[in-house]
């Protein structure tokens, strides 16, 4: 079993829809949870960062972490065509106390249709 599992999609939704992106993980030592957005031919851009179970909101984006279920989600409200990108989940703090090592999911390709 891979440390981080993420459905690669692709996911296609109409403009205005609520999008739910998810990752599961197996390493209970992970302490930090991130979502990156990667536009085509660009580097990953840090979108959301959290280190505790519960919800964290930033504008139209909500990151949710459930450590008991080893499950994280990213919700996008009122999705826009400009949200079309690949979304990568990432986790850190799980390698023998080394905070800096990040483990990534494979990414979910999202297309928001006007």
């Amino acid at each position, binding site marked *: 079993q891979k440390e981080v599992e993420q459905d690669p999609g692709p996911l296609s939704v109409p403009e205005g829809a609520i999008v739910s992106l998810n990752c599961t993980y197996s390493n209970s030592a992970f302490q930090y949870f991130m979502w990156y957005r990667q536009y085509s031919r660009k580097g990953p*851009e840090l979108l959301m960062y959290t280190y505790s179970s519960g919800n964290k909101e930033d504008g139209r984006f909500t990151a949710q972490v459930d450590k008991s279920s080893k499950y994280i989600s990213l919700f996008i409200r009122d999705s826009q065509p400009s949200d079309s990108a690949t979304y990568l989940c990432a986790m850190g703090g799980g390698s023998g106390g080394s905070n800096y090592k990040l483990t990534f999911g494979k990414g979910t390709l999202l297309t928001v249709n006007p």
Partner: protein
Amino acid sequence: SAVISQKPSRDICQRGTSLTIQCQVDSQVTMMFWYRQQPGQSLTLIATANQGSEATYESGFVIDKFPISRPNLTFSTLTVSNMSPEDSSIYLCSVGARGQETQYFGPGTRLLVL
């Protein structure tokens, strides 16, 4: 967040040759990282580069194939040596942030080996 640039942005190389990728950051950072991103695969950490010490390589990556330099706190290079078509990939550098709990990425270098 740090502003990170990479050179070249893309290249097409012949089998057996080597390519050096440069990563420049607009501020001094302790830790810099090099990743490989292959189609359909997770971002994979190649090595961690600290100024003044040897780079630390991840399992499956060796110094002879991917030599790294870190001459100062704002610059690093990754060389892909004796290239084969299997080395065709996107190579990304990143820098630690928030006490090294997360990372910011450069735009990437797209490498095609023929």
